[in-house]
């Protein structure tokens, strides 16, 4: 991870990330091949067994990711960065709250967690005043509730607060 002289900002090298991706795909391929062998890749009474097709699919993934691994050096310039740290921080600033959102959803339901997510983003990225934040953070889940639960009769995950309110 060397500093970039062209002023684009420092960050993980694109080569390193591409190599990592190719290796991850190869590992995925190995898992697929392993699982297929477990299911049987031969020829049974009913024709090709369940693992027959995925086994060759796994081989194809493995083969192409080896080629991609070899090609990384030829295709990607050594000084190219994947994204500079500032950009990655921005991306993580979205991924981490979303991961928390997704993780707590089964317990607190979708409505409360959505309201908190929207409020958090508006404060953190936009630094809006609380009245505006409150109106959007509460308004969107309310609209969702009316559209899904009332109009289209599609139930969404609910938590203790909604049960306490009697839904």
């Amino acid at each position, binding site marked *: 991870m060397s500093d970039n002289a062209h002023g684009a900002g420092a960050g993980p090298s694109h080569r390193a*990330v591409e190599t990592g991706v190719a290796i991850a795909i190869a590992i995925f*391929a190995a898992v697929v091949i392993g699982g*297929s062998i477990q299911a049987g890749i031969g020829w049974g009474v009913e024709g090709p067994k369940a693992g027959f*097709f*995925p086994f060759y699919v796994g081989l194809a993934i493995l083969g192409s990711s080896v080629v991609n691994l070899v090609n990384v050096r030829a295709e990607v310039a050594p000084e190219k960065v994947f994204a500079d740290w500032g950009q990655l921080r921005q991306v993580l600033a979205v991924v981490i709250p*979303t991961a928390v959102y997704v993780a707590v959803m089964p317990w607190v339901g979708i409505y409360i967690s959505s309201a908190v997510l*929207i409020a958090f983003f508006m404060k953190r990225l936009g630094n809006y005043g609380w009245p505006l934040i409150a109106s959007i953070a509460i308004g969107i889940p309310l609209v969702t509730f009316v559209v899904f639960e009332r109009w289209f009769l*599609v139930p969404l995950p609910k938590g203790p607060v909604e049960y306490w309110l009697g839904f």
Partner: protein
Amino acid sequence: MEELGNLFHGFAVALQPFNIGVMLLGIVLGVLIGVLPGLGGANGVAILLPLTFSMSPTSAIIMLSCIYWGALFGGAITSILFNIPGEPWSVATTFDGHPMAQQGRAGEALTAAFTSSFVGALFAVIMITLVAPLVARFALKFGPAEQFSVYFLAFCSFVGMSKEPPFKTIAAMFIGFALAAVGLDQVTGQLRLTFGSETLLTGFDFLIAVIGLFGIGEILLSIEEGLQFKGGKAGINAKVVWQTWKELPRYWMTSLRSCIIGCWMGISPAGATPASFMSYGIAKRASKNGKNFGKGEIEGVVAPETAAHAAGTAALLPMLSLGVPGSPTAAVLLGGLLIWGLQPGPLLFVEQKEFVWGLIASMYLGNIFGLLVVLTCVPLFAAILRIPFAIIAPVILVICAIGAYTVHNSTFDVVMMLVFGVMGYVLKKCNYPLAPMVLAIVLGDKAEVNFRQSLLASQGSLDIFWSNGLVGSIMALGLLALFWPMISTGWSKLRMRPAV
């Protein structure tokens, strides 16, 4: 003319008040989806698919296909006013559309774009009306081997035509096949690749993959680029529209050429994006104003928009008649068909006449409504783009999460959506194409079943794929498409070599 009667019956279906209602709703939602960053045709349709579970299949497909038309129209708005292509196929529209907006000719550019989109779509719909029944009748004779060869051709053309490195396309595609294989084996009923996990029993749903890969992944990409909208004013009024319309017939040759390019690229699964670029490039070479392209030439808006819309529409031809979608959005629509209990493919034209012809009729009407809606409501849609990203991003995240949850009422799917999202972000940045992966997840099971049935018939010999003229020539076409880049470079090298 049995087809003509069917078409009129289709119009009667599409013109029922409820269906007109869902058509308009679909168009407006579609334009919104096309305008908003992070929401596109494919994942927009995927998110809204669960809402249609309670409708009749015909109304459902009308609404979803109208969302698709709306998204195609919406992409042009952001490209011209904000220089941000809402969809990949609108990239070429920015080249001349945005300079026009900067010169204060936004209204002209928008009118040209919408009208060309409409012309392109109309051409493709007429083509579908005439050709689809013939293709379907022909395809009724297909056995498993022929059916597999059609899939083979579709996937090979992806590899040969994509601008990404071929081995990355292959890797992405086969990851899709592997994900499709997880869960219950359709032929033997045996479990595979579940590794004892209960959540994997049902496999990976492509809708979740689409919402994650295209929706969440796209938001992460936008965040990284640091979105800021600096847009031109959307001044459009009847006078501008009328004047542009008077000017447009001059470019009939460009239009016609772009229609043909679009239809051709749309049927083969190369899709709308390369079609728009190709059409722009050829128009630039052929036009006598070619050197002005890129500086705000109206012809440079007409060419890519016509082709993109023709391709986007034509992508439904193989989906309807062969069960092979020509684009990720068509793939999602095909998935919808399966969910509504319809079997995509040539039999649709025999067993589900009302559905097929209702859909085709709604393509005509949907595009007319679409043109009217976008021409009259452009300022409204442009205003939505001015909503700051800090507000719109979490709202889109919430919408994606709701979409992912409602597919199977499972919170685990929402987790998977985020996983696919991060995966999509990294893969996209590393130049792995996502469209073939999605197509493989959708078609994986069907391709596999046909492959295995063919092998069963031939006792395991691959010769069955060359056993008659039909299957052999489709397979040969597939191989040709697969190796096309090599063949064309080899050919040009051969021609460049000086005679000895």
